[in-house]
């Protein structure tokens, strides 16, 4: 089990895992904090302070602070997705499409929290934490980071080796067509089929729950607003009355306005600690779907290569039988192809193995995440209800005084 988790859903700007006292226990703790708006106009963006505390030897020193922006996180995620196929890469918060929302305090806070959660999940994943890209992200200065990031832009994101693979894929596709094997090949594994079906349906259910959660946030804001308006109106009405009744009205109006603030606060709490985790859950499911695509590709690749290798083997045997002078060349090609095929098979099997571990971790993680989110939700609702009850209750003695006077 991962010993350094339980920080998902964290809404504080501190990583809840404080550096442990013992030096033997390896730890890596990251905080994303202090969002600052930089640049002007269309070029404006938000930068964050990323603070790393660690005792790992690969890292320079106990504490390191760097400045990073959203695209840097995207770079890291993409690199990890590229290198660690089979692993469910922790999801990133979405790019914002709406201009004026991009710099609202709420959005910035939501994003900061999500980025903090992202980087900590990476840092606590047994495989991902060892990534060199992670180290670069956490340690390198801003210029190096920018260079690394801009290098990756453009259509040709892939390395030359990948490029060759692309051609080979096209080639095998042609072969398929020629050989009449047009149907896409899929692995037939009933357990995996069930998982695929589960993931797709889960996404729908979660999206619905997240939608309702978002709506609930809005409702809290609306109720807050109407309590505020109501309070004002009641106060004015009370001004028409005299003496103690007028005062009672005035107090009621004030309480109403007071509760309005509490509701706005709870709306914010709901957004950060209940709706966000649900959105995060949806993103995680989408990340799994991406891994499933990788797995499908890997499967097809190893299948194609296996088929092609078989053909080459048959061809080679034929040539050797005929004692052709092309046999040597063919043997060389065959050996090469076989190596590739084995490599592809290894890659595919690695993905399968990783996925089976990842799915267990995912389920456990999400139970913990949801449990925490529900705990926070219930706490918030209970707190709000108590505040409401107390506020109104405090008015009763004043009302009693009214009726007796």
């Amino acid at each position: 089990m991962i010993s350094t988790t339980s920080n998902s859903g964290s809404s504080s700007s501190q990583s809840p895992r404080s550096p442990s006292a013992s030096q033997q226990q390896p730890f890596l703790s990251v905080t994303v904090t202090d969002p600052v708006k930089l640049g002007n106009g269309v070029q404006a963006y938000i930068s964050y302070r990323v603070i790393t505390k660690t005792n790992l030897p690969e890292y320079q020193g106990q504490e390191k602070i760097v400045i990073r922006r959203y695209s840097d996180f995207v770079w890291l995620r993409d690199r990890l997705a590229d290198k660690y196929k089979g692993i469910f890469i922790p999801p990133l918060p979405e790019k914002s499409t709406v201009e004026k929302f991009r710099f609202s305090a709420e959005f910035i806070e939501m994003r900061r929290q999500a980025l903090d959660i992202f980087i900590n999940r990476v840092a606590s994943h047994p495989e991902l934490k060892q990534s060199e890209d992670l180290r670069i992200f956490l340690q390198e200065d801003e210029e190096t980071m920018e260079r690394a990031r801009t290098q990756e832009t453009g259509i040709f994101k892939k390395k030359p080796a990948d490029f060759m693979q692309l051609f080979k894929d096209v080639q095998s596709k042609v072969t398929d067509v020629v050989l009449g094997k047009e149907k896409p090949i899929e692995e037939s594994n009933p357990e995996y089929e069930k998982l695929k079906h589960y993931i797709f349906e889960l996404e729908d259910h979660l999206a619905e729950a997240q939608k309702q959660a978002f709506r609930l946030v809005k409702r809290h804001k609306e109720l807050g607003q109407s309590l505020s308006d109501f309070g004002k109106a009641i106060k004015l009405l009370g001004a028409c009355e005299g003496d103690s009744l007028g005062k009672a009205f005035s107090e009621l109006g004030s309480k109403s306005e007071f509760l309005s603030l509490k509701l706005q606060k709870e709306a914010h709490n709901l957004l950060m600690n209940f709706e966000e985790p649900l959105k995060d859950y949806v993103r995680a499911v989408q990340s799994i779907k991406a891994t499933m695509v990788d797995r499908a590709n890997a499967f097809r690749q190893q299948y194609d290569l296996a088929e092609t290798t078989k053909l080459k083997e048959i061809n080679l045997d034929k040539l050797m039988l005929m004692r052709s002078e092309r046999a040597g060349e063919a043997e060389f090609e065959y050996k090469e192809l076989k190596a590739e095929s084995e490599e592809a098979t290894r890659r595919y099997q690695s993905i399968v193995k990783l996925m089976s571990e990842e799915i267990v971790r995912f389920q456990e993680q999400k139970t913990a995440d949801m449990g925490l989110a529900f705990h926070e939700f219930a706490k918030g609702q209970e707190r709000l209800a108590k505040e409401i009850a107390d506020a109104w209750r405090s008015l009763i003695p004043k009302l009693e005084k009214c009726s007796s006077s």
Partner: protein
Amino acid sequence: MMGSETHFSFDPPPPKEDLETLALSDPLSAVDPPSDGSDPLLHSTSPSSSSSSFPDPPSYADVIFTPFNGTTSAATSSSTSPDFRPSTSPYLRISVSDPQKEQQDASTSLVPGGNTYVTYLITTETRDLGRFGVRRRFRDFVTLADRLAESYRGHFIPPRPDKSVVESQVMQKQEFVEQRRSALEKYLLRLAAHPVVGRSDELAVFLKAQGRLPLVRSVDVASRVLDGAARLPSQLFGEGPVAAVGPEDVGQPAKGGRDLLRMFRELRQSVANDWGGGRPLVVEEDREFLERKEKVQDLEQQLSTASQQAEALVKAQQDIGETTGELGLAFFKLGKFETEEAVYESQRTRAADFKRLATAAVRASRSYRELNAQSVKHLDILHEYLGMMLAVHSAFSDRSNALLTVQTLMSDLSSLHTRAKRLEAASSKIFGGDRSRTRKVEELKETIRITEDAKLCAIREYERIKENNRNELERLDRERRDDFLGMLKGFIINQIGYADKAASVWAQVVEETSRYGRERD
């Protein structure tokens, strides 16, 4: 003065099927959905064999709380006693029911072919005269309202429901009839609760007299002219003595349409008041009244705003309750899904957590609905008093109309005296007297005497109305104070009850999910 009968201008919509029939499981038991494809949320038992099925749903009473001490009268609504305060009305119970279509007798209607109208059964239980049941149509209510307006000038008479010009195109006929029925019932209850109007003969006759309503319908002058009853031409030309109308009738409002001539003269007087250079002979001098009038106007404005905001508040409460319920439903579905597809233990745990949250959310949602139903009742007082402002305006109009009548008569007298003097002067210049002029002077003096009588009647009437205004204003202040206090108390106690309930529902979930909480809380 006011009824606690609810009918806020919008009603909370009927609850959705799902939420209503949702079987809530006991949060502590293991949950298992039925294995068939139908929505398990509607089942209370599960055919699934192994684990325990959904236990019995918590009773609805679970989420209904009774309001605390004292103000139970504020919380209950009934069509029986409309008041917060003990009623001294002679009527214990009035209900309007059983709308029936009836055909108007073709022979008496102006429009050939007849038309249909709706009658309602009015059932009245009196304090010591037993029970009565009569049938009335809407037009009868209008007649009642008109008669009361004439007889009780200066009083704050509860306004009657509007005549609706809109036909069944806009609303379903049934809905319209039901709305009207409810409005009529509330109207009668308010009338019965009025300390003066409640004891009136008009109301008694309305409630008890079988068959046709024996109250005279107001007939406008145009119809009377058609019937040939009004001597319109001579009146218009100013001939004929004022005594065509008795002095006591002078006190009645000219706007009843019975006296077209008088209407014109009073209109002329009011224009003279507004635009003429001279000061009318009698003006509204009661400063206390003017102050109170201003206060009432201020009250009306604030009531309007408060009533609006109260409506918005109730709507917001309703919305949040609905969304909470829908959230609960979504989580129920998630829980069911995870349970069905569970491969790992962590999934089953999560499914149970989903269901816990869902149960709490649905409970909270039902609580909200209860809260709202009660809130509507309490805040309805604002709406009621706003409606009452119409009656107040009417009563103030009665007063100014009566004053106008007095002013008109005084001005009449003044000009009559002037004419008489002139005639006398002219007549004295002729030796031996002027037979015709002398006769005219005699006639004038007779007219003056009658007009003096009328003036006295008018002044008496004006004073009477002023007295009514005064009493009613006091009653308004008194009763408003009580009603508003009751409203505040009821509203607050209601809110507290709901909030306490919600707090305990969520506290349970906090407890159940405490193991997920961070160490630093």
